[in-house]
């Protein structure tokens, strides 16, 4: 999909729609856009071609494509400053097409968050800075498990210290409590690192940008990283923090795990589950080079390969370097590569067939996903991805497998994201559709999948039984059956996951 929209298309998309001026003015994504100036008749709404044209002109001030009659939401795969503004307008006006356009590009940047559990990580961070990379370095606190924020030092070994610290993040109470839980549950001498990560990620939770590239540096035997005379940050810690701070986690595109034995295929799959928008992963099948014995060389190669929005990171980037043979990579196009001969298609297909039955169990609502990052359905998703990425998969099968992949990821996130977003997005249509048949509209965000399927079935039967169903019911039915039930990507957009 092209990342550019013309003024004419913009106006057409907003035809018969209206945007509340106050809501738009208070939306952080529209900061700097003089929304009120587009309300030409001062009725508190932006509607009609004249007003949407004025709004377009305001947004165009952030565009650099040199054409006053079009704006680019993405350039060379990267989102532009225009993208969040189109996203906001699309959301406020309930126009999916604008939101989809806004999300064509990657919102990423080339900044790096380097979490270093060993002292040598300072050397690694500096080596990246010497290459012109903006690095935020998370490291062991001078006093174990303390953190400074707002001029105060918080003792993270005490509940009041953790509570006091999370308040400084400026996030909603419920979210702050989840972050506090993660920090409190962490191993001694790892709470400070997790707290520092949360400080960086808090910006992302408030609509801002966080580093798109993440380096986890330390000793490893497969799960997490630890440092000498320091604590251990487990993969579960990072997963829990990512769950508590999903907007930030979604901004991570490139992951580099600078730790021995960190790159097993299952481990890489698990990391990808934690960072759903990851496009590349760099890790190690065996021992990794130390901070002063090759890690900085590898970081330099990785830096060069992962700048921009490209996602073709290959392990050959480490060719000829110390421990280069131990590098494994994963990228969104070619999948996992550890330099070994790939598994036969028949083996990969066997895995897929073996795990396939679980899909129906979750689809029917017999089972529910308790953890979006692990479990049988996530493992089946990983099997689908491996099948899809196998070079020998016949082209004729690819479409069907892609469809299965898209449905499965929506099923994984059904309760957490899909149903709540569906409810919010189609609230009016749900109310009108149910009420037109004299039925009480359910709240799909609060129902289990099984309950939702029951409701949808009842609604469908009522529509079919009524012969000539009211227009509102006919409008709602395909949204429920094609969207919420069948999880079609045309109705459940990727932005909801």
């Amino acid at each position, binding site marked *: 999909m092209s990342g550019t929209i013309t003024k004419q298309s913009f106006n057409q998309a907003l035809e018969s729609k209206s945007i509340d001026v106050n809501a738009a003015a208070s939306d952080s994504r529209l900061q700097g856009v003089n929304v009120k100036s587009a309300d030409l008749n001062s009725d508190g709404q932006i509607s009609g071609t004249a007003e949407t044209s004025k709004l377009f002109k305001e947004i165009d001030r952030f565009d650099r494509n040199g054409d006053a009659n079009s704006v680019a939401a993405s350039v060379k795969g990267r989102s532009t400053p225009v993208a969040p503004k189109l996203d906001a307008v699309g959301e406020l006006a309930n126009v999916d097409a604008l939101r989809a356009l806004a999300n064509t590009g990657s919102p990423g940047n080339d900044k790096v968050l380097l979490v270093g559990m060993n002292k040598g990580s300072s050397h690694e961070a500096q080596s990246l800075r010497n290459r012109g990379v903006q690095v935020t370095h998370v490291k062991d606190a001078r006093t174990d498990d303390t953190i400074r924020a707002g001029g105060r030092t918080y003792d993270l070994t005490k509940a009041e210290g953790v509570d006091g610290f999370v308040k400084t993040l400026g996030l909603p109470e419920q979210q702050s409590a989840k972050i506090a839980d993660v920090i409190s549950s962490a191993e001694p001498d790892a709470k400070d690192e997790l707290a520092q990560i949360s400080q960086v990620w808090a910006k992302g939770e408030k609509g801002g940008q966080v580093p798109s590239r993440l380096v986890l540096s330390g000793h490893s035997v497969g799960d997490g990283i*630890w440092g*000498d005379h320091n604590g251990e940050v487990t993969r579960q810690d990072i997963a829990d923090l990512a769950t508590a701070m999903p907007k930030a986690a979604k901004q991570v595109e490139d992951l580099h795990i600078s730790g021995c034995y960190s*790159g097993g295929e299952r481990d890489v799959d698990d990391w990808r589950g934690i960072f759903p928008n990851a496009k590349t992963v760099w890790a190690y099948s065996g021992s990794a080079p130390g901070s002063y014995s090759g890690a900085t060389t590898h970081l330099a190669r990785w830096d060069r390969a992962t700048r921009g929005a490209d996602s073709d990171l290959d392990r050959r980037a480490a060719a000829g370097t110390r421990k280069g043979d131990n590098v494994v990579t994963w990228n969104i196009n070619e999948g996992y590569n550890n330099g070994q001969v790939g598994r036969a298609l028949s083996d990969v297909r066997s895995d897929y067939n073996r795990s396939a039955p679980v899909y129906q169990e979750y689809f029917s609502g017999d089972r529910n996903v308790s953890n979006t990052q692990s479990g049988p359905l996530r493992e089946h998703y990983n099997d689908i991805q491996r099948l899809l990425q196998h070079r020998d998969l016949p082209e004729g099968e690819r479409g069907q497998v892609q469809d299965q992949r898209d449905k499965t990821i929506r099923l994984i996130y059904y309760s957490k994201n899909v149903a709540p977003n569906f409810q919010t997005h189609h609230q009016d249509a749900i109310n009108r559709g149910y009420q037109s048949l004299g039925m009480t509209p359910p709240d799909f965000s609060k129902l289990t999948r099984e309950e939702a399927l029951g409701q949808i079935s009842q609604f469908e039967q009522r529509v079919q039984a009524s012969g000539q169903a009211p227009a509102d019911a006919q409008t709602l039915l395909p949204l429920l059956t094609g969207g919420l039930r069948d999880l079609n990507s045309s109705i459940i957009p990727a932005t909801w996951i």
Partner: protein
Amino acid sequence: MDLAAKSTFSRFILPSALIALLACESQTKDQKSQPNQPASKPAAEAEKLRASSSTTTKSSAAVPPTKTSTLASACEAGFDEALRVIESQDFKVRTFSCLRAIATACPPLSDAVKRAALSATSQRRGPRSKTLYEAVKNRLPLNCRTDTPEQGTKTMGTQCYKDRHDLSPRLISDMDAGTFGFFLVVEEELKTKGLYGPKARRVLLNLLLTTAMDGEKRKKRAKQKQR
């Protein structure tokens, strides 16, 4: 005792000859009520010593600590002391320090485990693997047994470790069967006895990593010889 000056990438480096002495001394230091006790004591007597010590309990506890929690605290303190040495060393020599820690830092561990760990600290790789394996083989599940503990873990069969998703498969395959089997038993024993804390875990992680790295090196050398 001479200590090297702090450098940017290590707290301190100790001459290896002093490491064993320090480990023992550290252990002795920890038994504050009985400063002259030797590092290893029969478990029952060690219990008595710790029961009389007032140093390892948290001051806020209104209820007297249970025997298990006292023992657990003591093991964690012992392993913590050992880790100050272990984690100051190059990975090449950590195997010996980790085994010494298992031998001396946690008296409630079974005598067989402690004896084997202590013997193994003065053995080269092959005999070390056999010593460690012999001490624990009867406690290993049937699918973890092997006739050649000095060989890789493949000789144990994948069923032994197929569910160890917390460990890299390659790490397991780089280890020798004897040390891996020893790790499995020690880990299980620590957990069963309520002694598996972060420091105990860390000693075992260091043992796993240093053993695997050594195994990786050996494999690489063997491959180069074949060419």
